[in-house]
């Protein structure tokens, strides 16, 4: 197998390949969906905030700072975590002796006490890093979740019932 080789300049060959390969990968990277993550903005919740505004604020936190939709869906398949569509209604009867408010607060502060059947305990407490929501922000989320098919009972000044939530019941 006699072969004729044309002598090449190694720096040129190498340089050109580096540029070409880098260009192709950059092109592919720019052709697929572009997603950015921005640090969450500070959210201001005032005591005089109305329930509608509070729920609206809760929706924004749920989408953004809370990163809830990384696992949950609203009207989707709920592959990693339960779908939240209609949670306001379900929360009223989900746990015996618990109001919708209590259940939702517990699900956010102590998410692994009650885990919906078919799912594994994987949610972090939202009041701790890396999510690190303030108590007021959690109230806003509860307000939004209640608005999904249920009756909104919380106000911006509502505090979770610490006597009740976070305590395991028999069978849990």
């Amino acid at each position, binding site marked *: 197998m006699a072969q004729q080789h044309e002598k090449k300049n190694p720096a040129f060959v190498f340089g050109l390949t580096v540029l070409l390969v880098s260009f192709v990968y950059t092109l592919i990277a720019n052709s697929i969906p572009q997603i950015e993550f921005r*640090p969450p903005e500070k959210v201001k919740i005032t005591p005089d905030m109305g329930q509608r505004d509070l729920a609206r604020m809760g929706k924004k936190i749920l989408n953004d700072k809370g*990163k809830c939709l990384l696992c949950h869906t609203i009207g989707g398949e709920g592959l990693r975590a339960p779908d939240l569509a209609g949670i306001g209604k379900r929360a009223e009867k989900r746990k015996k002796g618990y109001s919708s408010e209590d259940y939702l607060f517990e699900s956010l502060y102590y998410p692994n006490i009650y885990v919906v059947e078919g799912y594994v305990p994987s949610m*972090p407490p939202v009041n701790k890093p890396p999510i690190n929501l303030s108590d007021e922000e959690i109230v806003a989320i509860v307000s939004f979740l209640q608005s999904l098919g249920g009756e909104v009972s919380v106000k911006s000044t509502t505090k979770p019932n610490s006597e009740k939530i976070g305590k395991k019941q028999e069978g849990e």
Partner: protein
Amino acid sequence: MPDHITLFGISSREILWVFAQLHLNLAAFVIAVPTFALIVEIIGFKTRDKRYDKLAKDFARLITISLSLTSILGAIFLFSIIALYPKFFSYFSQVFSGTMIFYAMLFFGEFISAYLYYYGWDRLKDKKLLHIFIGFFLNIFGIAIMFVANAWVTFMMMPSGVKETGELYSLWSAINNPGWWPLNVHRLIANLAFGGAIVAAYAASNFLSAENENERAYYDWMGYVGNFIAVSAIIPLPFAGYWFGLEIYKYDQQMGITLMGGVLSWLWILQAIIIGVIFLGINYYLWVGMERIKGAERYRKYVPALLLIMTICFIIWFTPHSLVASLEEARKIGATFHPLLSVLGIMTAKNTVVNIMILSTFLSFIIYRRSSKIPNTSWARFGNFIFFSIIAVVAGYIIYLGIKGYYVETTVRINYSMYQVLSVLFVFIVCTPLDIAIYHKSKVIGSIKWGRMPPRSQYMLIVIAVSFTWLMGLMGFARSSSRLNWHVYKIMEDTSPSAFVPSLGYAAKVVSLITIIFFIMVGVIFFISKMLEHHEEERLQLK
């Protein structure tokens, strides 16, 4: 003082990103080259083949130059952190002050042993074992330096040994955090693959510019050795990466989801494409390389089948779960996900094809190895039957688990992927010694005609090296971005405007810039090395 400073219009984040990744690339090179040189030196010592000793020395010459350049970049990187992220550095030095002193001492050991290793090459030619011993210590120092740095990096992702407030209570726990060992193993293997790929690319560019047949033969052989070491290391590399990923999930599921299913999810499509290119490139080089081996024609009929398997696997691997579709296209499909492609885009399919790709690469390597040989053992037929039965059964098992993975819950599916990985490892552990035993004292029917390689094979070696470097940059971005806007995950938040995760397109531009600068530096290192070599030759001629 805020952790966000702009210098000459460039944000602190970009400055640090470029310096950190360049330092990391060069550090990988500095750790890989001594390992490569030592392995080749030992092979030369055992086989008494002088070509290996020359090759090892050629690469030992690179160590001292690249070590100096890496140290300079490391110093720039360190000063950049102190100047641009003072709060972070203050906290970090409080936690890791003890290891920082140790790190500096290790550098001292690395420099001394590097100089002894290179400058002692000729003086210790009659005391080869002593020289190999020095080379061994050089590697130990290099690896220890990497391990210390890995502890810092993984602590930022998975902090341990500190209270919620960040206060240190156990330095050892901070070092021995959940990500430390997986990253140690992953980088150790990756460095070897990276070193082999760079050596092969260097040989390829010299092959293309060779003056005569002898030079071509030498650089063809060098490219083969480099590629062989790269292949040997790259085959177990995905498993080490898998282990690292598993630890991330175990430590913080949200971080795992951010990486794989959140803001960084599309990055893995690009990663799959690059790894696919590397695997296809390696296989292609082996197949083309068979053209210069007498006796290989017996195996060429299998190449199209292997190419077909690799191509199908490659396509499935980079199929995204959710397609980029216009509203009209989505309406036509009738769903967000494509009915067929979304099925191929999920993890169970991807885990299956990546394992099949690794098995196929193993097979390519086996037929390359067998090309010029005829077994002499009486039980060779039976041995081959067992050999290929094991591979067929394992491939079938991997596909079976892949299909079953669609019908079980996530928790079960995760275990399936582990079984798939273990099955492939089983093939390596059992079939490699079996192949060696079958071909023990085999009859050689033709030699390898070194230098008789088509140029296209050499271009492929360069593409593999560049792809590898680019991939390192991409993975550096992924690892760093998995922390989102936390310097130290869950402990130290960065809410400055530059603490965002940029888009993949933007990151790719930075990674390309880093890759180009890195190869310019490598070019300078090789150029200085060539000058030193000429200087040495002149000195010997004068003597």
